[in-house]
C-alpha cells in the first residue's frame, strides 16, 4: 500500500493515459514495476480505462427496455434526449473541426479520449514497432521516425513518437550490440518528444533462455510488454507503423 501514496491518482491517471512527458514516464516505469501495490493500482486504472472505452464501443442496447416504461424512466429518457442533443451538437462541432479526407468522413473511435485530445490539440502521436534485428530494418525505423519528427518540427506540429522494440528488434536498444548507439543518442538530444521503449518480456526471455543480461542504451525506457504497450497506445489514439 505504501506505493499508492507516492503518486496522486491524477498523476497515475496521467501515466495510464500516457499524458506524461517522456522523462517523467521513464522515471515512473521502474518505480511502478518494482512496487507491487503500485503496479496493481496501475493495472486497475488501465482496466477501468479499457472498460470505459469498451463501453463506448459496445453500447448497451436499450430498445427492449422501452416496453415497461415508468414515470421515473420517462424522466431518465428526457435526460437522455437532452444528452443526445448535447452529444449531437458536440459531435458536430468536433466533426466540423476535422478536415475532410475523401468524403466528410466518420470517426469510428472519436469517442476515445486519446483521439479527441489528439484532434483538439492537433498533436500527432506515432508508434513504430520494430521486431526485426536486421540492420537495414533498424536503419529504416530510425530513418522513418527521424523524417517524421523533422517534418512535424518544421511544420510546428506538436508530436510524440515512440519506437517500441521487442523480440529480435530489441538489439536496436542493446548498448553493446546496436550499430546505431551514437545516432540514437543524437536523435534523443535533438527530439525530446521521442521515446525508445524496450520490452521487459523480451529481456526476461533472453536471460532465461540464453543467459544474456541485457544492457540498454541510456535513452531506452522499459515497458512491461511490447505488445501490451502497442495495444495501449493504439487505444489511446496513437497511429501505428510496422517496420
Amino acid at each position, binding site marked *: 500500500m505504501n506505493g499508492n501514496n507516492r503518486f496522486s491518482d491524477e498523476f497515475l491517471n496521467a501515466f495510464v493515459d500516457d499524458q506524461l512527458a517522456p522523462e517523467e514516464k521513464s522515471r515512473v516505469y521502474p518505480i511502478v514495476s518494482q512496487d507491487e501495490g503500485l503496479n496493481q493500482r496501475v493495472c486497475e486504472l488501465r482496466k477501468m480505462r479499457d472498460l470505459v472505452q469498451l*463501453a*463506448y464501443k459496445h*453500447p*448497451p442496447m*436499450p430498445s427492449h427496455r422501452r416496453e415497461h416504461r415508468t414515470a421515473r424512466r420517462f424522466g*431518465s*429518457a428526457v*435526460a*437522455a*434526449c437532452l*444528452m*443526445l*442533443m448535447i*452529444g*449531437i451538437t*458536440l*459531435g*458536430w462541432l468536433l*466533426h466540423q473541426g*476535422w478536415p475532410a*479526407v*475523401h*468524403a*466528410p*468522413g*466518420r*470517426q*469510428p*473511435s*472519436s*469517442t476515445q479520449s486519446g*483521439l479527441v485530445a*489528439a*484532434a483538439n490539440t492537433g498533436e*500527432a502521436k*506515432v508508434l513504430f514497432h520494430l521486431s526485426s534485428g536486421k540492420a537495414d530494418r533498424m536503419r*529504416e525505423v530510425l530513418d*522513418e521516425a527521424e*523524417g*517524421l519528427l523533422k*517534418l*512535424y518540427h518544421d511544420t510546428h506540429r506538436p508530436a510524440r513518437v515512440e519506437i517500441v522494440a521487442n523480440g529480435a528488434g530489441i538489439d536496436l536498444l542493446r548498448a553493446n550490440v546496436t550499430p546505431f548507439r551514437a545516432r540514437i543518442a543524437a536523435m534523443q538530444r535533438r527530439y525530446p518528444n521521442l521515446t525508445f521503449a524496450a520490452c521487459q518480456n523480451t529481456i526476461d526471455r533472453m536471460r532465461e533462455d540464453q543467459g544474456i543480461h541485457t544492457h540498454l542504451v541510456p535513452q531506452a525506457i522499459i515497458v512491461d510488454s511490447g505488445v501490451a504497450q502497442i495495444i495501449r497506445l493504439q487505444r489511446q*489514439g496513437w*497511429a*501505428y*507503423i*510496422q517496420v
Partner: protein
Amino acid sequence: MRMRLFLAALLFSTSALAANPAQRVVYDVGDGGARFARSAVTNVENQLAAAKGTPVDIVMVLHGRGVDLLREAKEDPDLRHRIMALKREGVHLRVGAGSIARQHLDYRTDLFDVAPGDIVPNAIAELVRLQQRGFVYVKP
C-alpha cells in the same frame, strides 16, 4: 443507470453522425520489391471480394521499395489491369515523394498512372494522417 443512459446517448449521437459505414483501410506498401507489392494488390482484391458491395474506402500508400509495384506495372499488362480494376472500385494509390526522389524516378515516365495529386510529401505522415481519421492500418 444515468451514466449508462448518458453513454448510450453519447454513442448514439456519434453513430448517427456516421452516415457512411464504409470500411476504411490504409495499406502500408513499403516492402521489398515487386513480388511483395503484388501480394498487397492481392490483399486488397481479397478485401474487396469479402466486402461484397459494402462501401469501402481503401488507400494504398506506396513508399520505399513498394514503389516497385508501379514500375512493374509499366511492363506488365496484367498488373496494369488489376490496378485499374482496383481504382475503378474506389481504391486510391498514394506515392511518397521522398521515395520517388531517392530512386531518381520520373513519375510521368517511370511509374504507371500517377497523377500529381497522388504524390504525398511524406508517406509515413500520410499513414499517420489516415489512421487519425479512422482508417485501420494493414501492413501486407
